[in-house]
């Protein structure tokens, strides 16, 4: 049972890490992140990089949808804006890739603010449809602004370069993506210890009440869109350095749904939830491959026969989580924590 954790100050009470146990787990996580590239093979390292990109984007969407209550199906489009910006800068300027990523995030944030303007008048499903509309407009721009976006074929991107070394392997890219994503996640966690973050939560809980309390709704809603889109833009920039090509068909509405599903499965309004959701959505389809592989010796032509079942199993897993654990994966973690907090006095 956890005892002796009474806090003497508000600062201590609001700290991100409040107990030694949390400190220890954070240490384990940090050690795992540092050790991962040395123990993972190319395949798992690829997935690790993909998870990092998805965590960054899902965290951004969680700020908007989970914390501010503004449903968006435009996350992939904002990622595309970041990806195209980074691709264009990398091809046409000699700027360092970190600056390109920041600018990618900046341009995406600007676009996100524009898209967020309707959020003052509409919310819920209506806002979701408005963001789909914005995605369609952006797709049209990507397809037809050929001189900048490369049209239907898109843009090929040279590898990112750091101190004269081209970052081409997953090992190298991991060492760039991991710190960026960690900083973004810590930034998001800290955001909700500030006035801005609390304003977002107030808007989510009841926007009219938040307005009555003196929170300028338009400013904070647009700010939420901007921050969320900035995260998406940076994630899109990492995405394009990872895949080295972007086209109008790279990041689609299906990817926006993927990120929305990730934060729902993980747990909306929870930093841990976005992380767990992104990990779940990225890795479970891959893990299910091993089920197909395990069945291969026993089922003739397992590859083509069982692949549809794998897709169905993934969909069913998401549905089961929604039905049986609507608070998301983060709630499971909380339940486990509560169990140990109260152990051995609660069975």
């Amino acid at each position, binding site marked *: 049972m956890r005892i002796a954790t009474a806090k003497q100050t508000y600062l201590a009470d609001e700290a991100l890490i409040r107990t030694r146990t949390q400190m220890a787990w954070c240490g384990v996580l940090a050690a795992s992140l540092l050790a991962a590239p040395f123990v993972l093979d190319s395949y798992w390292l690829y997935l690790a990089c*993909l998870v990092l990109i998805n965590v960054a984007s899902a965290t951004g969407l969680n700020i908007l949808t989970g914390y501010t209550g503004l449903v968006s199906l435009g996350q992939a489009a904002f990622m595309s804006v970041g990806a195209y910006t980074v691709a264009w800068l990398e091809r046409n300027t000699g700027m360092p890739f970190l600056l390109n990523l920041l600018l990618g995030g900046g341009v995406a944030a600007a676009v996100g603010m524009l898209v967020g303007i309707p959020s003052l008048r509409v919310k819920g499903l209506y806002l979701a449809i408005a963001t789909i509309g914005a995605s369609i407009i952006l797709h049209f721009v990507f397809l037809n602004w050929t001189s900048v976006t490369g049209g*239907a074929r898109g843009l090929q991107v040279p590898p990112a370069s750091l101190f004269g070394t081209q970052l081409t392997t997953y090992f190298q890219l991991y060492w760039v993506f991991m710190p960026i994503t960690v900083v973004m996640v810590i930034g998001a966690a800290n955001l909700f210890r500030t006035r801005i973050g609390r304003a977002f939560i107030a808007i989510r809980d009841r926007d009219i009440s938040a307005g009555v309390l003196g929170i300028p709704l338009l400013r904070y809603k647009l700010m939420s869109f901007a921050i969320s889109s900035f995260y998406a833009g940076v994630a899109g920039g990492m995405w394009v350095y990872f895949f080295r090509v972007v086209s*109008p*068909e790279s990041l689609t509405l299906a990817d926006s749904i993927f990120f929305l599903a990730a934060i729902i499965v993980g747990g909306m309004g929870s930093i841990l939830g976005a992380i767990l959701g992104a990990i779940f959505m990225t890795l479970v389809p891959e*893990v299910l491959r091993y089920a197909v592989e395990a069945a291969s010796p026993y089922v003739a032509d397992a*590859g*083509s026969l069982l692949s549809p079942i794998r897709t169905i199993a993934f969909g069913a897993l998401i549905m*089961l989580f929604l039905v049986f654990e609507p608070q998301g994966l983060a709630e499971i973690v909380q*339940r486990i924590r509560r169990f140990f907090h109260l152990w051995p006095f609660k069975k």
Partner: protein
Amino acid sequence: MSGITRRMLMALLASSVLATAAPAFAQQDVDEIIIGGSMPLTGVFAFAGVAIEAGIRDYVKMINEEGGINGKPVRFIYEDTGHQIDQAVAIFNKLTTQHRNIHLYYGDSTGFSRTINPELERRGDIMLTSVSFASEINNPETFSNQFIAGPDYSQMVSILLEHIAKEKPGARIVFVNSDGEFGRDPIEPSTARAKELGLEVVEQIITPPGAVDVSTEVLKLRRARPDYTIFHGYILSPLPEFMTQARQLGLETKFMGTFWSMDSSIWEDVGEHADGFMGVMPYRYYYDDAADAPMLERIRQMRPQYQPTGYTQGFLTAMLMTEAAKRALDAGKELNGANLKAALNSIQDFDTGGIIGVPISISGNSIPVGRIYQYSASARRMEPVSDWISLKD
């Protein structure tokens, strides 16, 4: 009580997922030739992926029954991508990590071919082909370790245009393309080629992806009054709607398509309205019983039911990949991307067993050969209406 049940269920779910995540051990692939594959067995391109997988598998089975490649057995290992690029790349990484001697690979899309290209160049040990006939892949400088088992999309339209120029010099043409990477692929080179051949492109229609109502586009077609209407970027829909409405308006235009809209089984369900639809096909159809096509006879013996054109693409692809591997081994070369590609490019006047009706040569990244077929609703078959057309380099 219900809480316990819920937790138990979640624990069961989690453990079952984890149980399947047994570590994959790098496998010892002793002295065998492996073809890896990121295959679109589910998703929007599953209709092609399943057929292609069957084609590759049958050819691999056939060549193994004949003793493999210089005594080395051939193995085809693949996994489903759902036609998603990130999954296709994941599978590429998974298979190439598990099997160190994969030197031949089949990809699931243009996007994958393009995305994996920098990695192919960096690794240098793999030659790749895919479901894609995209024109941009037909560039030996930028896609040096890739090839297309047929003409690219621009070459397909060029073959159609050559046929038209011969059949009706100075004909009026309308291009109808879907609004996407696939659909827009051949527009520019095809327009230029039409001009070179003295044909007049009187209209260019772009339809939104997934368009069903095409009445506006049909009106444009009526205004243009073309002799030929060439579709690209579709499988089936909205072609039947186009043809039906155009005929109701009394248009005499001939409708044509490219590879993915040329499988005869997709037109069977359309019925009479499909009659007369034409297009380019680089391979002979399953049911072609020409005397100089013994390989098709073997396919029919292996599979008595009709096999779609995707199957033939997969079969021929496996044939060309293994032929390249054989030539590289015969020359005492190491199997890697450059040597395999050089071996593939050494193919001159190669007999495909009648799958392609003329001997083929692969000087670059594609095989610019095709034939014009026309669908007969009464025979429920595609029937040839031209000889084989080989494009000049």
